[in-house]
């Protein structure tokens, strides 16, 4: 074994090694801190612009305020104000409950509508369109509006739905109605329509994604076992796309819960939403009560999501 000289850098000669050893076990060729360094920018952004703001919100929700300033304190009055009149036993619903109820109503409507539409569209793309290029092309057709301005997409409904809008004119033109339909614009209907229009894609994408992962053989196996199309849908497809449904639902529910712009514009500013309340309180510089409202909203959203996650483990999907 004794051969030629070894360059000093090429390792430790056998003879040079001591017998007893405690090995320091390396686990990677890159230094241990590389990962921390690489993760640091993202961690920092989230710390500065997500964690700390949430902490600030919690803190400020206990502060005092006047018309023009906020003052450090520790009072629960903001929360009391949020729930003002809610527990006094009066027959009428308090503002906060009424607002949440109204918001939740939209959440429910939009959720059901986007789920139905999103599922159907994804199902069509996945199981009825045969070639992959076609699937991708049609999928793109569905997603492109998502990349364009939400505001523009929202206001495009206005010329359609107004009292003298295209829909009313058309319906009147063909004699279906003789007076314009008032409920088309500045109404619950308009809000729900615009929200569905804006956010159906948040359902389509995850459901489509889940569906594409279903092994075609499973569908064939179901048919082989005598399942009808409908039985296959309920017994095989739906259980398997549940994670996609949950992810889509989380998106839709959080976005609609926090929305104020669509509800504002399409509802003629007449419909209350939690987001709008927070926003107008900010406008009146009532930061602490806005913060308290935000915390309540956050709690509601997190509870909802927690409930949904109990149904499905989405980590597997990522």
């Amino acid at each position, binding site marked *: 074994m004794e051969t030629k000289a070894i360059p000093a850098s090429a390792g430790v000669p056998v003879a040079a090694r001591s017998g007893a050893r405690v090995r320091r076990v390396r686990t990677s*060729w*890159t230094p241990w801190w*590389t*990962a*921390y*360094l*690489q*993760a640091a*920018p*993202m*961690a920092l*952004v*989230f710390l500065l*612009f*997500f964690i*700390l*703001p*949430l902490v*600030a*919100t919690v803190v*400020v929700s206990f502060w005092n305020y006047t018309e023009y300033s906020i003052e450090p304190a520790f009072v629960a009055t903001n929360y009391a104000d949020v729930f003002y009149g809610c527990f006094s036993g009066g027959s009428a619903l308090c503002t906060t409950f009424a607002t949440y109820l109204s918001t939740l109503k939209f959440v429910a409507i939009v959720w059901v509508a986007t789920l139905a539409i999103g599922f*159907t*569209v994804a*199902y*069509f*793309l996945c199981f009825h369109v045969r070639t992959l290029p076609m699937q991708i092309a*049609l999928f793109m057709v*569905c997603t492109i*509006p998502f*990349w*364009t*301005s939400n*505001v*523009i*997409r929202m206001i*495009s*409904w*206005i*010329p*359609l739905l107004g009292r*003298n809008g*295209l829909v009313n*004119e058309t319906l009147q033109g063909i004699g279906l109605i003789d007076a314009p339909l008032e409920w088309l614009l500045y109404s619950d209907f308009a809000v729900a329509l615009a929200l569905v*229009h804006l956010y159906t894609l948040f359902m389509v994408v995850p459901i489509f994604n889940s569906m594409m992962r279903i092994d075609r053989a499973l569908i064939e196996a179901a048919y082989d076992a005598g399942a009808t*199309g409908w039985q296959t849908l309920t017994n095989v497809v739906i259980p398997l796309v549940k994670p996609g449904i949950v992810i889509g639902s*989380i998106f839709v529910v*959080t976005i609609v819960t*926090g929305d104020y*712009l669509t509800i504002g*514009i399409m509802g003629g500013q007449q419909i209350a939403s939690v*987001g709008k309340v*927070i*926003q107008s309180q*900010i406008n009146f510089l009532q930061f602490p009560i*806005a*913060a308290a409202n*935000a915390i309540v*909203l*956050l709690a509601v*959203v997190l509870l909802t999501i927690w409930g949904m996650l109990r149904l499905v483990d989405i980590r597997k999907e990522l």
Partner: protein
Amino acid sequence: MAANPVPRHERRPRSFYALALFFALFVVFLYGPVVTILTLSFQGPSGGLTFPMNGLSLYWFERLWSGGGTVDIGAAFRRSLALGLTVLVLTVVISVLAGLAFRKRFRGSAALFYVAVASLIVPSIVVSLGIALEFRIVDDVLRPALASLGLADARGNSLGLFTSGLGAHLSWTLPFGLLIMFAVFNRLDKSYEEAARDLGATSWQSFRFVILPMIAPFLIGIALFGFTLSWDEIARSSQTMGSTNTLPLELAALTTTVTTPEIYALGTTVTAVSFTVIFGTLAAFLALQRRRRTRLPKAG
């Protein structure tokens, strides 16, 4: 034995036609309204906000261009563009770095992941308010302290396009970037890095010459996400932009306030920009792919 030389035709199930119709209606639903405003933006000078069309012209585009409107859309446009591009670059860089970090094991990785997901699902208005509050506190509490040390102007407002605004947008784009990076790196076999190391590449070389070229097409995707999410962001921007407005905020304000088809002309322009970006990106992606496939003469 083959009795009929013409093969039978395969019939589609009836459900196909029903679903295809549904899909078609969905597409109409998706694009129909936008098409209306695209059409209406070409109203003649005396045209109003609704049909019927009063002539056909580019009048409202000219007005928009000449800044004849109430607000300076051009400035908002440039601000949004600048912010969007900054967000784009930072999103790509930070996501790639974090993606690389997540390839290794490090303490806190799970926490970081959950924070990213949380940032995605916490209502934007809450985040927006939080950031505004945070900066308010900085201005109210920290700034006087810093000023007394001579480190900062005593009066001032730290909220701004490239401070709180940028942060708010990153808190929205980075989770997407990270999730895409996960998808990308999950599909990227670790053996490529090992092979590079085996062949004497340093960590940097292995990133520069192997990983980066391999993930480049997906980075275009992240860039697209970063830009369009920022370009179109409202809820998080609403409280965090300081003294200036981004284009969507300006647009949101204008939707209810502009009384002429100028708003549609603006909508058409914004949509055109979005489409240019999307299709530009797609074209770049396809070109990259194609170059990979065919840049070389066929051999042997």
